[in-house]
């Protein structure tokens, strides 16, 4: 297993191999994303039982929670890619990190927006300085910072390393930010009704949620591969294999 992993790692470091193998992976990600998301959506929207307290507005959970999970895990993945780039100098790690940033920002935005919309029927207001939403808002700014830094720096190798460092600094700070915001929230207002923490959700409710989370991850893979493939072609435009691959068609 370990040997297989190290070979995979070394191969992924080669842009040509990356491009070829991801071409084969792409359909699997696409199919699983489409299947999981459609099953999860229909199940969650149509078949899952209504929440006795929140009514049908609770169905927003099927977007809010997966997007929030992805928003956080994508940032961690970007930091890991940053370590791989800075320590092992694997350039493909940066391609992946670069492809993830806009998806992460989109997911954070989705979590914020669905949270805000959900807030109207549950809290009676669009925005509440709830600990969870506040942390998410800060995460959104962290993503914007990463994207802006990449835009601002030239040449690309420098931007790559700077973004990697910033992602690592950010990921060390995220738990501190989260802890401090939680603390700040309990300091300023008594813990009232929270959005997602509910006692003992029945399986008919959490199973579609699990499927949605998996579907979101599959879509993440699909989207990252599409972006990374375009980026690999652009970065390697001068090399022979890109020319050969594209001229074949």
């Amino acid at each position, binding site marked *: 297993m370990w040997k297989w992993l190290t070979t995979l790692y070394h191969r992924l470091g080669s842009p040509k191999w990356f491009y070829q193998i991801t071409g084969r992976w792409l359909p699997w990600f696409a199919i699983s994303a489409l299947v999981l998301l459609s099953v999860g959506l229909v199940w969650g929207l149509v078949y899952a039982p209504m929440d006795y307290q929140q009514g049908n507005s609770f169905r927003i959970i099927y977007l809010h929670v997966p997007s929030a999970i992805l928003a956080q895990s994508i940032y961690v993945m970007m930091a890991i890619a940053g370590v791989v780039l800075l320590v092992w*100098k694997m350039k493909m790690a940066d391609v992946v990190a670069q492809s993830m940033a806009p998806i992460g920002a989109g997911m954070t935005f989705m979590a914020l927006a669905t949270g805000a919309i959900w807030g109207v029927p549950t809290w009676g207001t669009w925005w509440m300085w709830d600990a969870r939403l506040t942390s998410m808002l800060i995460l959104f700014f962290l993503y914007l910072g990463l994207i802006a830094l990449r835009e601002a720096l*030239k*040449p*690309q*190798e420098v931007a790559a390393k700077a973004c990697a460092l910033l992602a690592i600094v950010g990921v060390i700070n995220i738990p501190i930010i989260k802890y401090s915001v939680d603390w700040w929230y309990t300091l300023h207002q008594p813990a009232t009704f929270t959005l997602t923490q509910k006692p003992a959700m029945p399986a008919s409710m959490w199973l579609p949620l699990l499927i949605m989370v998996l579907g979101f991850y599959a879509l993440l893979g699909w989207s990252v591969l599409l972006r990374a493939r375009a980026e690999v072609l652009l*970065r390697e435009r*001068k*090399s*022979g294999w890109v*020319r050969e691959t594209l001229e074949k068609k």
Partner: protein
Amino acid sequence: MFEPPSAASAWLQVEQLACERDERRLFSDLSFSVSAGDMLQIEGPNGVGKTSLMRVLAGLLPAVEGRLLWQGEPLEDQWSEFYQATLFLGHLAGIKPELTTLENLSWYAAQEGETDEALLEQALAQVGLQGYEDQPAHQLSAGQKRRVALARLLITHKPFWLLDEPFTALDKAAVAALEQRMVAHTRAGGAVVLISHHALEGLPGLKKLVLQASVEEGR
């Protein structure tokens, strides 16, 4: 501390080096070596990557391919030893405008354990900056700032010099003096790598490395 290597082994060995800037291949498959007593002049038209090569040698820019050996061992394992022996002067003089001429020089001297102010003043006098010791460097001209940086060559203990266009903004007498200093340094067993368009043919021990405009190859 820097150990003088045996005559056989080269100080710096460059093997199949390749360098890229902004996704443009500057040079590739570049190999050469520098040993004690060498003076290596790097020449070539603008934009072939002379400065990039120098910055790769100084460890300020990562190489894309190839490796660097310092006294036979990979350079990336011994940057600190390498820098203890190496003096790098880039395009920028590294002179702070807020500090006086003497303060600027003394910072670099302090890095080598040289605190003797009389010696520093003597070095400044030799580069023609007598009377400017306590002037803030922002009052100096570009050529004078350059001379402050070059005064470092007079007080340094470091045997391996990397000089990027050291003759820029110098007058004739200063150029001659610098040439003399470099010759003395290599004669005494040091080594110099420099980028320059100047004709240095008269200098003993001079070797040349000419960088060609690179050819885009289909890798």
